[in-house]
């Protein structure tokens, strides 16, 4: 069953013009036509480099920002058409875990109050049971009950991320959107948080959208992977096939760029040349074509469609059309 569906999402930001008083310039196309759907209980990994629009997309799905065009459906209900009580009720169902546990927690609120806030707003339990509920959440994320009266600065990065997770879980959501949840953490801490997120998913039957630039993390946590480049999804596939047989030249390049532990005296060759072009002046054809080793004349002129090939895998590249 599809729990979250995004249809033709576009998000354009107006960019400043050349001078201070001049009119605004061409829009920045942060997200430019994305359709995704996530099955209940599934974990979808969204991978891409900085500036590809993955965080903007996550924010649209949470209804933190309004898309320029497109719709988001939660269990078939149009999220952006909701108002008042219905909206509050639905907002509860989808929660976010942020990248930076330092700036996403209020430094002047105790951890207990941070977690309790959502419980009270959404009236998850009776007022007298809030504290018990906070304790059980702390326990779930591996923090002692005494943590409730302490402030964020008293915790390490990994512990703060646990607080962020407890806060997201406090309102009993169905979907968790995690935006680079382990990017700011050390390797040994990173592994613990990844395990925690996995265990919670199984215990509570959660659905994840896992946003990351780290292919290793994505490989570990997701069932399906969507690769994003310059505001568009260029490849969507189940995890196994994506890592064993990447289709899009961009995905292949990304996988070849990961430094490997088995070097064997071989030098790492940069697989993708150049840098991500500015999202203001996108090329007319395929947006990856200026960097693509397999680009043809057609790629420069015509925009490739998102085609489905062998067994439901989807790719946006002329090589497969």
């Amino acid at each position, binding site marked *: 069953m599809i729990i979250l569906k995004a249809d033709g999402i576009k998000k354009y930001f107006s960019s400043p013009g050349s001078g201070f008083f001049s009119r605004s310039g061409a829009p920045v196309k942060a997200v430019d036509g994305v359709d995704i759907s996530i099955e209940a209980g599934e974990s979808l990994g969204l991978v891409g480099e900085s500036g590809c629009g993955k965080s903007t997309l996550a924010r649209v799905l949470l209804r933190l920002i309004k898309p320029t065009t497109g719709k988001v459906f939660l269990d078939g209900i149009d999220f952006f058409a909701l108002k008042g009580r219905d909206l509050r009720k639905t907002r509860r169902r989808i929660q976010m875990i942020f990248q930076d546990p330092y700036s996403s927690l209020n430094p002047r609120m105790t951890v207990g109050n941070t977690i309790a806030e959502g419980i009270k707003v959404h009236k998850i339990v009776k007022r007298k049971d809030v504290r018990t509920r906070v304790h059980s959440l702390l326990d779930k994320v591996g923090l002692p009950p005494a943590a409730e009266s302490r402030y964020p600065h008293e915790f390490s990065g990994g512990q703060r991320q646990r607080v962020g997770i407890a806060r997201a879980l406090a309102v009993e959501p169905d979907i968790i959107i995690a935006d680079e949840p382990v990017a700011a953490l050390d390797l040994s801490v990173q592994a613990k948080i990844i395990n925690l997120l996995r265990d919670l998913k199984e215990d509570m039957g959660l659905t994840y959208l896992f946003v990351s630039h780290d292919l290793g993390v994505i490989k570990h946590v997701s069932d399906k992977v969507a690769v994003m480049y310059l505001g568009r999804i260029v490849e969507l596939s189940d995890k196994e096939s994506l890592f064993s047989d990447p289709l899009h030249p961009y995905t292949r390049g990304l996988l070849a760029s990961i430094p490997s532990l088995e070097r064997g005296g071989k*030098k790492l060759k940069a697989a993708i040349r150049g840098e991500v072009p500015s999202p203001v002046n996108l090329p007319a054809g395929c947006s990856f074509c200026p960097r693509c080793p397999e680009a043809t004349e057609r790629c420069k002129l015509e925009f490739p469609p998102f085609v489905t090939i062998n067994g439901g895998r989807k790719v946006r590249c002329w090589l497969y059309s």
Partner: protein
Amino acid sequence: MLLKVNNLETIFRMARGEVRAVDRISFNIKSGKTLGLVGESGCGKSVTALSIMRLVPDPPGKIAGGSIELEGNDILKLPEKEMRKIRGNEISIVFQEPLSSLNPVFSCGEQVREAIVLHQHLGRKDSKTEAIEMLRRVRIPDPETRYKNYPHQMSGGMRQRVMIAMALSCQPKLLIADEPTTALDVSVQAQIIELLQDLREELGMSILLITHDLAVIAQMADTVVVMYAGKIVEKAPAGKLFSDPSHPYTQGLLASMPGYSIPGKSLPVIPGSVPDPVKLPPGCRFSDRCGKRIEKCFNEEPPLFNLGDSHFSRCWLHNKEEN
């Protein structure tokens, strides 16, 4: 041997007590080779780099002991004036975040030129030609135009190239690269790694590569040093360290890398967290988190055992006399 670090000890006097950020570490770097220094935040790897540059903020920091020999001369004994000639000329450093290391109000080319003027005493015209040549060397496309660009007009990868151009402008013998690719995307990271490897060959320099990313180390380093809570816990040729890690901490780190373990299974983790640097455990510093500890680990600090083939590990498990 280009650089010999011997029993280097750097301490910080804090309100809560004395922190021995770098605790008697020793390693050597051969000319033309890359040494990788790996460890988690707070293990002392960046302080090691600052100590070699003699840029440890004093107070609260202080190099308390040991020696750092650059081609046989102990640079810790040099007066500050002499040390200034070494910085940039003999040893250069590239930092993690190029945006905060570059001056926002000067063009990137001017900043490279400044480094050249300071160290090579060239005239205005010659130094500019040289600066453009350096930008070309670090593979910046269209260096004449890029010379006039300010840091904010460049991408992260380009800024890191400018930093490398500045660091290499005087052809140092040793380049210290402190997390040079951490702030960059994977595809750009691969480009910078490739660039550093090529430049090392072209210029015949040595690199001290500091990072928390084991895969970057595996890709670039000839020798690897693993640090934990200020101490070296393992030292080995790169191939050996990754195929046959000996210290339980190194083993734990390698096992916990997502993407290299079995997907879908839970990741093996190292329990607990790094000890408080003011209250270090009396025996082995890793003892309270180690799965293989024995009684002795809590009481006595293990020495760095020589396992042969230039492989060293600080763990009582290697104590042959008792086993």
